[in-house]
């Protein structure tokens, strides 16, 4: 293990067989990547790309067809190191006959949290995910979002140093999403490593330090996200109303083609130019209707990666 390398995946592949093993499907096709200490790593890809399959391989729930994976320097087939690992599955399921408090206590004991610290940990986690008041109700009565919160709580109850989250925002309302984002940032602040499966690009942009983009079982891009977040290529759409002919001519001349849309006019400009555009528009007594960032680089990388994947990729239809 290189210094600071928390997860290392090399040539990992998983082939599912169905119909008496005659039909094969290569869900993950020899991928390699690594996750470094203390970073929030986004594992990004469209539906069916192989994100969940990769995470199940990392958790030892399915056995790889080829390749290897290590977490904290341990082969993922081992057990004891999982004391330092937290996992939130996609759409998590739990024992419905237990209450929120009981299930967190169960996972804490299972993870080797010392008996005297269990109560305190359980209460802390319930508060973190906003379930203090539902802690004594059976999980049978929980809503989807509440179960997602239990899932996050159990992933953190033993204070792991690396956390794997499969679609952590799924099933949560806007407030819940914000809370989980804050929680992830807080873990980051504590120096933990976070691995996150998602296809919500805005979450990735807001949270992740580095990403890997997986399409049809293959990695199309792996690298830092900061570079293109601050790149020159970001554009924005500015929509204005009550634009005089004089102002329209001025804007058109300086910022490129102005398009009309009913009573509104629209401009497509560099993000860096927004300030100047708005100043000029307000000077000319126009009204600003909206400013929408467009073509975030991650999105464009994502889209082109998906397109490049083509139909001939390993996950293509049989």
């Amino acid at each position, binding site marked *: 293990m290189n210094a600071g390398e928390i997860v290392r995946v090399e040539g990992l592949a998983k082939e599912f067989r169905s119909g008496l093993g005659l039909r094969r499907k290569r869900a993950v096709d020899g991928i390699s990547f690594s996750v470094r200490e203390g970073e929030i790593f986004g594992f990004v890809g469209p539906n069916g790309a192989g994100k969940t399959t990769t995470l199940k391989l990392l958790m030892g729930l399915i056995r790889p067809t080829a390749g290897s994976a290590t977490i904290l320097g341990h082969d993922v087939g081992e057990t004891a190191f*999982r004391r330092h690992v937290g996992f939130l599955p996609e759409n998590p399921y739990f024992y419905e006959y237990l209450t929120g408090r009981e299930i967190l206590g169960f996972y804490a004991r299972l993870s080797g949290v010392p008996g005297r610290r269990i109560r305190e940990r359980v209460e802390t986690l319930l508060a973190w995910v906003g379930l203090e008041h539902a802690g004594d109700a059976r999980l049978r009565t929980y809503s989807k979002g509440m179960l997602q919160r239990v899932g996050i709580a159990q992933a953190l109850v033993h204070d792991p140093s690396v956390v794997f989250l499969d679609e952590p925002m799924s099933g949560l309302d806007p407030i819940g999403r914000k809370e989980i984002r804050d929680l992830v940032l807080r873990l980051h602040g504590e120096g933990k490593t976070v691995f996150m499966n998602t296809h919500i690009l805005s979450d990735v942009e807001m949270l992740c330090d580095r990403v890997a983009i997986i399409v049809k079982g293959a990695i199309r891009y792996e690298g830092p996200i900061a570079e293109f977040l601050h790149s020159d290529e970001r554009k924005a759409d500015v929509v204005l109303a009550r634009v005089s002919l004089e102002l329209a001519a001025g804007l058109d001349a300086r910022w490129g083609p102005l398009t009309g849309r009913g009573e509104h006019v629209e401009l497509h400009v560099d993000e860096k130019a927004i300030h100047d555009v708005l100043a000029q528009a307000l000077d000319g007594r126009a009204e600003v209707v909206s400013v929408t960032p467009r073509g975030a680089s991650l999105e464009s990388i994502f889209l082109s990666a998906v397109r490049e994947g083509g139909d001939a990729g390993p996950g293509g239809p049989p």
Partner: protein
Amino acid sequence: MISPVGIAVISANTVREAVRSRVLYTLLFFAVLLIGTGVLLSTLTYVERERILQSVGLAAIRLFGAAIAIFVGIGLIHREVERRTIYTILSKPISRCEFLLGKYLGLVATIWIQLVIMGLAFVAVSWLAGAPLTHQIGLALGLAAVELAVIVAFATLFSAFTTPMLAALFTTGLYVLGHLSRDLRDLGARSDDGGVRLVATALYRVLPDLESFNLTTQALHALPVSGHEVGLALLYGAGYCGALLALAVVVFDRRDFK
């Protein structure tokens, strides 16, 4: 390395699940009811009243014990995989082997608790009817407990790789065969055909001999039971459970949880 902590946590929770499930109370209720009806049946006759009472009671205990063991056992592992509760559990520092053993021991503990409750009902009914409570009855109940542990081991093994339907079929089949395996052996031994004898002996070796845990006759007639016999049955039961669980672990360890 097998850690007892993880096993204990899983077992305790398995017992807790059973305690919170209504189905088990219903089964237990009917078992106790049947033990009680022995009193009714015994009033129909003047001869051997106590013996009929206790014979019905012991049969009820063994049958209902097996029914509960099969009923809960067949879904023991399968349910966890199907409902995906196993995903989060195995992401914790617990091996598949520890999980499986924990589930097994938890169910055995549950069934033994039920056996104790049925046994207490039996003792109460016997006492009310003035039937003798011999130490052979205690031994018979003890070996019934061992038999139930073997049945749960079968159910756990099948539950580790197949659906509850098939597991129920296999486990029930082996339960029935297990009680006939001695007859099978004796039948084969009487055959003139060497091949038949060989097959019958081989089958007897592989199939469980559940009759070796059956002390009903000795209990009802207060016949002597040798310590040697009981010791052998205990050893046999432990060995059989061990082999079944080892097989279950091997099968379970190779599985993909999709």
